[in-house]
């Protein structure tokens, strides 16, 4: 058996786990991050929804029910967490833009407007409230993007279709990493004689350097260009995740990827170690403190059984449930916030699970009870804020 020891072991490689692990590294802690695979973050738009149900996210957060985990973080730390996120992303070459006090509306593939707070550089000009002409570019055979959804709903728009030779978002994004392909694409755009205005492209403009690709398109065409997020798998989500993972590794964090936790060792009131299921010899990862950031149902942090039971999948912590199964869902698909979204781990003021009697375990992200991320439109925002807060709690716990 191989044994490695860390100050802190973070379980879960999504937004909250990555942000907690990075913050701990910044605080000088030796960190391990364990993830069973690519996180749900890779399915996301890459945009950071902080609180999408009001114009000013901070105002909205203030008005959230008392039980909401944002209140455990506190306003000052929320602001600090997003400043830190913006700084980190700037250094990665995938800068994010936005204002914690003002939401923006960006164009979706359905031609509707999505409310979000921070957007990646490639969506800087994706705001829907502008009057000029917009030209949508699509790709031959791309099954998750239909420009007619947009052009038929919005006035003063047109579209053209480029043949990239591959029909998938990931395939096209990979091709954009080739300079000749990009040059071809730009040459083709120039032949279109598009009226003055903006150019909108589904989010496939490269994987590693979208910033330079979009800048080149903008300077060659002499007009603004932006990306529209697409259905999963989503390139902007993938970029965000890869960038953060890279930051953590650059800061000396160890990443255990594709590993599930086979067992947990607990002594008295402390988690001592977790053992990873690997194809070779088992591997034991020890920590002075642990962070649970495995997300809600979609990410596998929670798992519902048929008989009114929800399990927390790593430590088997007690899970708060809003009621029996017949109360979990509204009858209406479009009514925001099914009751089951409240399910999760209830924590004390220092983010430690209640009624679990474990002193060195901290919980962050959407696995927290009452987080209701769909209802409030606060998924990545809550992950960043609670990840940051939990990292600081943890740092204080192990001086």
């Amino acid at each position, binding site marked *: 058996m191989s044994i490695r020891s860390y100050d802190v072991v973070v379980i879960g490689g999504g937004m909250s786990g990555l942000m907690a692990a990075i913050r701990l590294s910044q605080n000088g802690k030796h960190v391990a991050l364990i993830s069973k695979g690519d996180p749900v973050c890779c399915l996301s738009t890459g945009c950071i929804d902080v609180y999408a149900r009001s114009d000013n996210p901070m105002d909205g957060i203030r008005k959230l029910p008392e039980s909401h985990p944002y209140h455990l973080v506190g306003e000052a730390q929320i602001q600090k967490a997003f400043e830190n996120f913006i700084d980190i992303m700037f250094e990665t070459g995938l800068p994010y833009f936005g204002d914690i006090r003002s939401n923006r509306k960006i164009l979706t593939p359905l031609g509707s407007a999505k409310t979000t707070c921070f957007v990646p550089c490639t969506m800087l000009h994706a705001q829907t409230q502008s009057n000029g002409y917009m030209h949508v570019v699509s790709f031959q055979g791309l*099954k998750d993007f239909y420009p007619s959804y947009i052009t038929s709903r919005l006035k003063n728009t047109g579209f053209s279709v480029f043949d990239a030779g591959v029909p998938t978002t990931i395939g096209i994004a990979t091709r954009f990493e080739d300079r000749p392909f990009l040059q071809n694409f730009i040459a083709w755009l120039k032949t279109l004689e598009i009226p003055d205005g903006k150019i909108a492209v589904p989010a496939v403009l490269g994987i590693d350097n979208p910033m330079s690709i979009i800048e080149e398109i903008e300077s060659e065409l002499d007009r603004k260009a932006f990306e529209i997020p697409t259905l999963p798998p989503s390139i902007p989500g993938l970029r965000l995740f890869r960038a953060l993972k890279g930051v953590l590794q650059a800061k000396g964090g160890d990443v255990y990827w594709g590993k599930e936790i086979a067992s947990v060792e607990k002594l008295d009131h402390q988690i001592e170690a977790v053992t990873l299921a690997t194809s070779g010899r088992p591997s034991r990862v020890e920590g002075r403190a642990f962070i649970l950031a495995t997300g809600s149902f979609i990410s596998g942090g929670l798992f519902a059984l048929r008989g009114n039971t929800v399990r927390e999948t790593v430590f088997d912590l007690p899970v708060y449930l809003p009621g029996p199964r017949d109360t979990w869902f509204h009858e209406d698909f479009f009514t925001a916030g099914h009751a089951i979204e409240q399910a999760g781990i209830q924590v004390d003021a220092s983010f430690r699970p209640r009624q679990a009697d474990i002193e060195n375990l901290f919980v962050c992200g959407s696995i927290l009870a009452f987080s209701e991320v769909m209802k409030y439109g606060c998924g990545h925002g809550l992950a960043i804020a609670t990840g940051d807060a939990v990292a600081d709690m943890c740092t204080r716990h192990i001086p």
Partner: protein
Amino acid sequence: MQMIKTDVIIIGGGATGCGIARDLALRGIPHYLIEKNDFAAGATGACHGLLHSGGRYVVNDPDAAAECICENRILRKIAQKCVEQTGGLFVRLPGDSKLFRDRFLKSCEEVGIPAEVLSPTRALDLVPTLNPVLEEAIKVPDCSIDPFRLCMLNAVSSRNTGGGILIHHKVIDIIKEKNRCVGVKIQEQFTSQIKEIRSRLIINASGAWGDLVARMGGSFVPMTLSKGSLVISNHRLTNLVINRLRPPSDGDIIVPNEAVCLAGTTSITVSDPDTIDVDPAEVDIIASEVESMIPAFGTTRLIRAYTGVRPLLKAETDDSRAISRGFRIIDHKNGMFSILGGKLTTYRLMAEKMTDTIIAEFGLKTSCKTAEVPLEGQEELSGYPLSKRLKNLDDIICECELVTRDDVERIINNIGTKYIGDIQHRTRLGMGPCQGGFCTYRALGIMQEMGRLTPSESMEVLTAFLQRRFKGIRPALWGDQLREEQLVEYIYLGLLSMEQKA
């Protein structure tokens, strides 16, 4: 207003209505069939697609059982492409009555249902997923049948001989002259355009809606509506139909259907066929009952629940399980006939009797041919075979069921539909684990590109689809299906930001 004249109007595009249309066609009688939805939208499409051997009814209702085995043999012959000759088992578990088993075997012999007793070992050889504690199993010629395909093929015969088939048309009124029903006023559901059809006779084959239609004609039909709910598993857990060897009860049938299994049913008396839902408790009952026959069912992902309303003959009893599954033809003496009761397995026989009545009414003597002439158009069925679907993997729109862009475009061109459901029924688009979570957005995008839908229409269709889809998924949401549902919710309400209600 458009005015059409014909001899017979059939109201209802379920198996009975389509069967009557075909029978009339083969006997040369001009007719129109009116269906407010797609084919098989009522009880026909909401059953488990079991072509009964008769075993289920043999102890309590031997007459119905005799009809079943006779029709079972006919349909295996005339509707080969709709029937999968799976065979079926009646499984006896510890505690199930031995006396019932003896009566079952004796009745099978009397009625003429081939029944073979299998030891647990032989039963497990046939169906390895069976609960190994079983006492024994009895093999009967149960089959799996595709009700939608069956309706479509019956309609093909009718179309070929000039019959009019109008789906997505709702009867909004019955035209009466001197207290006689002489025609119908119908409305095209998407455009709201109104047409009139005049006829010599009207047949009310609208199943659970039978009384509502009869009342439009100034009469009524006494019926009991019995809701039956079912669930769909993500895997084909058995290659044979599995029944419990006991008097009919909840959750005692599981039928293999292409790549999945359909399990049910429940039986609850209801009053309104338009406002029925599956209750999560019904899903629990079905799941735990089926689990006792096939333990793996308890850990298999359930992808949807659905429910239909059995239009049963009104009886003295309150117990809807005890009401006969036989059928009845009612002459309202006003130019309208109603046909009600019965079941999918005997649809052809029902159609034959109904058509015989009409022929007599018209003073003709042509005899029924539907028991001998195979359904037309079977050779054109695309069918599910994986070998066919794997041929073209380039442009897959629905990854769960391997439906290509070509398939979708062909259906849209052929039937000129504006309904996503029409595409789903004809291609299996959206029938897999994500239940159309991804592919519906795509299919509607294609319909828009083809100019079939305006943007506002496509939003309406998408909204209605997501509501209907959620209604089916909601009662069985736990485990991996709950994970999938959170993703679909994120896509439509988060990423695509469709309008939410407060």
